């Protein structure tokens, strides 16, 4: 199973098509077999090749019939013994504006005649659809028509009765009307696809002249994907659920750190407004019957308070399942799936963090995951990947035709990573951990004032306090910066310890929740111990000062191998580590040995 991200790498799909098809056919999954007749008005072999690839990826194994070149109409209207014997389950009529019989002499005919000519052209196609559906009683997919790159009548081409743009638009309008009134007739909207692709790029006159290909070869995968989406929808293979992250996905900010008043949502700010538009977009999916769930690393109370934000368009009751905890997200998607009695392959997972998407798809390759730069990016991908293509045939009717059980399919899928450690190694993480640098003081100070969850003492610093820490010889300071194959996470962890002879007392230890469960805290500890050894420090003392938000680190020192020296009734605790006993803890992050100079 491949997770194709949008925009597609069309060039790579074309070039590696055979390899991808072979690997899909050999992946051991059971597929629904179907027979597709392609009645084509131009060369369609390349369309079929890509269509096969995308259908296999949707769990459908097609067998194709292809009409002789430009015999789509004759095959359909007069019949063809080979086509009859093939007995298609689905018919795809691959025609384009190249197949329209336009006026040969536009201005030499009257407006009435021109109008009549357009209607006749529509009737020509309509006859084809009627004949085919009478004979084969199967779904018919028909391309509509794309605009041409030339407008000989200028702007009036779109309304003048002699304009080709008007001709095309009128045919499309009539075709849409036919689709509304005829079950089992579906339009593949190449008018939209070509506009998105760029009409000038879409049309390639040279491949038309050389091979009779009706569009640029590089545009072919987009057409095929679109058809594949209609077909998978007809067979009930649409996605059914959107699982959504919360922080920086449904609102801007980290609610665990900033509180419900700190997150941005609503029309007061530009950023807040963009998240409102995203929520509105998601809410519209729920109106179409798509199930929504929450899949977030958060405390449940925080998650609920965010969704109850007065400006939040989505509220807790919009979600069929809310998973807000610190388990890995693939586990939470599995939990939601079993609650809803759905298979995980019905899930689309949306998270701003590509690393979260990657771990979900590595464990559950049948889940489609979308990461994004901006929420508009997420909206575009959700729509262009066409997870929820609507076809009017009842999907329940079609589902009964599925020839295999879902469980068989699930067991055929292997988890890509044997263990979490393997997954961490696959991230190619590199950390820089070293003493503070002047250029980072501002960011470090900001982190001490923002981080609440992974923060042992929640000690806040002003700029001038931080500067005096930086300039003093009484402190051991470390900042950590983490990169992985998806990019640079920036400065994510800070430690400040005060020296008392051979003892280091930790005043501050924090980490951004963005890098939870990546072993970064162990890499920081390794470096801290190393630095203490260099300074002849033999003991490290630590404190956990309990707040309403930092329960996740209440046992951190125990995990680090410290022993507890004091536990107060209010939940605060003190801890001690003898450095001579210490063993290196991090093996998954490559730590760059930077200069451990103190004052630069």
């Amino acid at each position: 199973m491949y997770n194709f991200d949008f925009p597609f790498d069309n060039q790579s799909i074309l070039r590696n098509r055979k390899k991808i098809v072979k690997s899909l056919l050999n992946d051991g999954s059971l597929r629904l077999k179907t027979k597709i007749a392609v009645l084509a008005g131009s060369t369609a072999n390349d369309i079929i090749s890509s269509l096969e690839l995308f259908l296999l990826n949707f769990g459908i194994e097609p067998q194709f019939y292809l009409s002789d070149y430009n015999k789509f109409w004759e095959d359909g209207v007069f019949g063809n013994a080979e086509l009859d014997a093939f007995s298609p389950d689905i018919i795809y009529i691959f025609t384009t504006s190249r197949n329209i019989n336009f006026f040969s002499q536009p201005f030499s005919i009257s407006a009435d005649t021109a109008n009549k000519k357009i209607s006749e052209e529509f009737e020509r196609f309509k006859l084809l659809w009627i004949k085919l559906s009478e004979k084969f009683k199967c779904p018919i997919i028909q391309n509509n028509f794309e605009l041409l790159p030339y407008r000989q009548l200028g702007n009036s081409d779109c309304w003048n009765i002699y304009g080709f743009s008007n001709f095309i638009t009128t045919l499309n309008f009539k075709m849409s009307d036919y689709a509304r009134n005829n079950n089992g007739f579906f339009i593949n909207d190449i008018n939209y696809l070509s506009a998105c692709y760029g009409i000038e790029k879409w049309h390639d006159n040279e491949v038309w002249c050389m091979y009779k290909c009706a569009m640029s070869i590089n545009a072919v995968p987009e057409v095929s994907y679109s058809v594949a989406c209609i077909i998978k929808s007809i067979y009930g293979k649409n996605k059914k659920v959107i699982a959504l992250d919360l922080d920086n996905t449904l609102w801007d900010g980290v609610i665990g750190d900033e509180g419900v008043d700190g997150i941005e949502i609503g029309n007061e700010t530009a950023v807040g407004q963009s998240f409102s538009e995203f929520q509105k977009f998601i809410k519209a999916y729920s109106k179409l019957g798509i199930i929504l769930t929450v899949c977030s690393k958060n405390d449940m109370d925080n998650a609920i308070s965010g969704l109850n934000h007065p400006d939040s368009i989505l509220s807790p009751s919009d979600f069929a399942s809310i998973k807000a905890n610190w388990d890995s997200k693939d586990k939470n998607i599995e939990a939601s799936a079993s609650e809803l009695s759905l298979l995980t392959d019905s899930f689309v997972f949306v998270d701003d963090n590509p690393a979260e998407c990657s771990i979900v798809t590595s464990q559950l390759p049948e889940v489609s995951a979308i990461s994004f730069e901006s929420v508009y990016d997420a909206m575009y991908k959700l729509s262009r990947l066409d997870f929820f293509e609507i076809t009017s045939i009842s999907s329940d009717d079609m589902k009964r035709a599925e020839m295999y059980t879902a469980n068989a399919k699930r067991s055929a899928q292997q988890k890509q990573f044997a263990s979490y450690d393997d997954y961490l190694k696959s991230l190619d993480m590199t950390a820089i951990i070293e003493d503070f640098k002047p250029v980072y003081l501002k960011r470090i100070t900001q982190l001490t004032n923002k981080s609440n969850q992974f923060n042992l003492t929640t000690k806040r610093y002003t700029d001038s306090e931080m500067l005096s820490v930086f300039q003093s010889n009484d402190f051991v300071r470390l900042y950590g910066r983490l990169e992985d194959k998806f990019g640079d996470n920036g400065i994510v962890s800070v430690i400040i310890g005060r020296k008392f002879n051979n003892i280091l007392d930790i005043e501050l230890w924090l980490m951004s929740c963005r890098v939870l469960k990546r072993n970064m805290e162990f890499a920081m500890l390794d470096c801290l111990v190393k630095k203490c050894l260099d300074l002849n420090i033999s003991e490290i003392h630590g404190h956990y000062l309990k707040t309403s938000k930092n329960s996740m680190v209440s046992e951190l020192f125990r995990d680090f191998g410290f022993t507890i020296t004091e536990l107060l009734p209010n939940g605060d605790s003190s801890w001690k580590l003898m450095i001579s006993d210490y063993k290196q803890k991090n093996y998954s992050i490559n730590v760059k040995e930077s200069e451990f100079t103190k004052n630069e």
Partner: protein
Amino acid sequence: MNRSDALKRLTAVFQDVFDDSSLSISDSTTSNDIEDWDSIEHITLISSVENEFKMTFKMREVSGMKNVGEMLNIICERAKK
């Protein structure tokens, strides 16, 4: 462009398009030497070569190329510009 570099990259394109990692091509290779190289795969091949070398063949060239050597000549010449 260096002709032997171009041949290496061109070989990789052929290997991908025909899904045969052992495929080796030379100046004298023609469509008769590669079983899958029919008029249909030719379209994918030409398009993938154009994508690889960020150039386009002229119509006259596509129909006129007799073998891989002639294709390489055009690639090397076009890449110089």
